[in-house]
């Protein structure tokens, strides 16, 4: 009998089955259900009468923080009342513990290896970096998880990515994602699993970027193999016990794909889609931009801010460019202050905003107007995603976005640094 992949093992554990395989329908216990400010919008919410277990719920306001309008303010007030009614301990309101849910879950290591985590946001797969079976579900699904403590998954086949080598300087996990999306396209109904000899050299932030962006591959689950670096990270932040899950040696994969990180070059996704839409930066270099954005659950990490600061250090952004930087959590913001990244970015002309999903979903803090062009290190470049549908959104790494802000047009970090990068 063939072995199981990481998510199959987690599903088996949480469904009480000995074995789970592709094609199965699994009803699983949920270890953590994360609710957002969007869960409490007056036009969308339902009034919850009982919860399954308040210690298996976290409430994290992130899409519209601080409240951007009357509707979000009302949703926040209603959410605070929900937190009081059910005694939710893990609550992240506007304040020093504010942040984008997937990033808060990472900062605090709420996402424990080997567990099931759900949230009504599509980029919940970001917690796959922590060896979680984590995925975005719908708002009604989330209410079921909160009230019943369970959810369902259709078990898909898994594509295994074996990563080897090491990223060159100026190349980031975002470029790895753009390479995967460009080379292999969508992964609808499939899981992706990441492992291989490159893992120890790949930071937790980089893994989070890759896991978060797997939503854009249309992957069901995106899960990293656990290693010492991950386990140490979690133990430093969360005292709760956990059992990491490794794939069986004879796990059945639909396909194994080798990716040599040494060979990855900076890429840009052209507007409207990331599926088979990546080109080398040089191909679009010179395209004028009005906005450059670095942020979101995928690219608001400390490593992303460090990379952006490295590129812009001692330089000024081009006239006519709005360079917006949104740290993913206030904790990341504080750390970036201590490291001097925020000063460097602001001296270059960046506007640094509080932690929020903000501009990434066209909500607030950097919405695009008609006909504008933006280069973004965030999650999506769909038509109309960040504002007016006539705006063009290119997607790239934080380094490429920062270099473009300096140049006033799409540019590679190498080029703006005179080849010094």
């Amino acid at each position: 009998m063939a072995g199981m992949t990481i998510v199959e093992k987690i599903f088996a554990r949480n469904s009480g089955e000995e074995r789970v395989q592709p094609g199965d329908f699994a009803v699983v216990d949920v270890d953590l259900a994360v609710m957002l400010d969007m869960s409490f919008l007056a036009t969308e919410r339902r009034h919850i009468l009982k919860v399954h277990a308040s210690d298996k719920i976290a409430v994290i306001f992130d899409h519209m923080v601080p409240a951007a309008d009357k509707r979000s303010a009302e949703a926040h007030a209603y959410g605070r009342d929900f937190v009081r009614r059910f005694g939710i301990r893990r609550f992240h309101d506007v304040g020093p513990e504010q942040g984008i849910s997937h990033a808060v879950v990472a900062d605090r290591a709420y996402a424990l290896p080997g567990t099931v985590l759900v949230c009504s946001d599509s980029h919940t797969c970001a917690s796959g970096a922590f060896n979680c079976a984590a995925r975005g579900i719908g708002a009604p699904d989330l209410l079921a998880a909160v009230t019943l403590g369970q959810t369902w998954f259709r078990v898909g086949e898994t594509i295994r990515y074996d990563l080897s080598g090491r990223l060159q300087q100026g190349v980031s996990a975002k470029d790895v994602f753009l390479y995967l999306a460009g080379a292999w396209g969508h992964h609808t109904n499939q899981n992706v699993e990441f492992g291989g000899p490159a893992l120890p050299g790949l930071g937790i932030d980089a893994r989070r970027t890759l896991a978060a962006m797997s939503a854009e591959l249309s992957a069901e689950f995106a899960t990293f193999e656990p290693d010492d670096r991950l386990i140490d990270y979690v133990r430093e932040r969360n005292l709760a016990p956990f059992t990491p899950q490794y794939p069986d040696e004879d796990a059945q994969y639909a396909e194994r794909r080798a990716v040599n990180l040494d060979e990855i070059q900076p890429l840009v996704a052209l507007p409207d889609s990331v599926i088979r839409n990546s080109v080398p930066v040089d191909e679009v270099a010179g395209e004028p931009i009005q906005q450059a954005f670095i942020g979101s659950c995928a690219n608001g990490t400390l490593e992303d801010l460090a990379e952006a600061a490295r590129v812009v250090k001692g330089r000024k952004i081009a006239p006519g460019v709005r360079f917006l930087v949104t740290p993913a959590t206030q904790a990341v913001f504080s750390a970036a202050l201590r490291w001097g990244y925020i000063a460097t970015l602001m001296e270059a002309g960046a506007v640094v905003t509080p932690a929020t999903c903000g501009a990434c979903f066209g909500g607030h803090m950097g919405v695009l107007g008609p006909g504008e062009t933006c280069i973004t290190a965030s999650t999506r470049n769909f038509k109309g995603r960040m504002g007016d549908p006539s705006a063009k959104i290119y997607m790239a790494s934080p380094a490429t976005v920062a270099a473009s802000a300096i140049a006033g047009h799409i540019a590679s970090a190498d080029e703006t640094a005179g080849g010094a990068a």
Partner: protein
Amino acid sequence: MISGTVWKFGDDINTDLMLPGPLLFAGEEAQKRAVFSANRPGWVDQVQVGDIIVGGLNFGMGSSRPAARSLRNLGIAALLAESINGLFFRNAVNFGLLALECPGIHAAFEEGQTAEVSLADFTVRNRDTAALLKAQPIPAMLLDLMIQGGLYPHLEREGLIEPKAGRG
């Protein structure tokens, strides 16, 4: 059996095209009016209750937003696509939109032809060409939710949420 007139869409149709970000806070009626406004303006005035959408690969990629609900509210009788994003499929279950994956569907239909869907054996027939296709079966529990109005009525019956929306 369900039958309806087909509207065709391509690959990678994303949630933001069905439910644009600025409408996230606007309520169901306004959301319904905005479906495909960026890629096919005016379509909401042409589509009729009972019509069927035929899509390509990776239909519904993107956000967890309730885009499937907007299609249901327009009266779409079924979504038939080569493949459907897993999160969009969940919301089809959640909000009671019949959604089936059906390999070969995109080539088998021209816009305006009539599709007949049988849930007894998960087949789709083109009434105009008589082409017959096999759809991927759906677990009974999920199919029941899809055709009986989605998940909220179930949670209401279980006494887990209040029967009416938007209290407070």
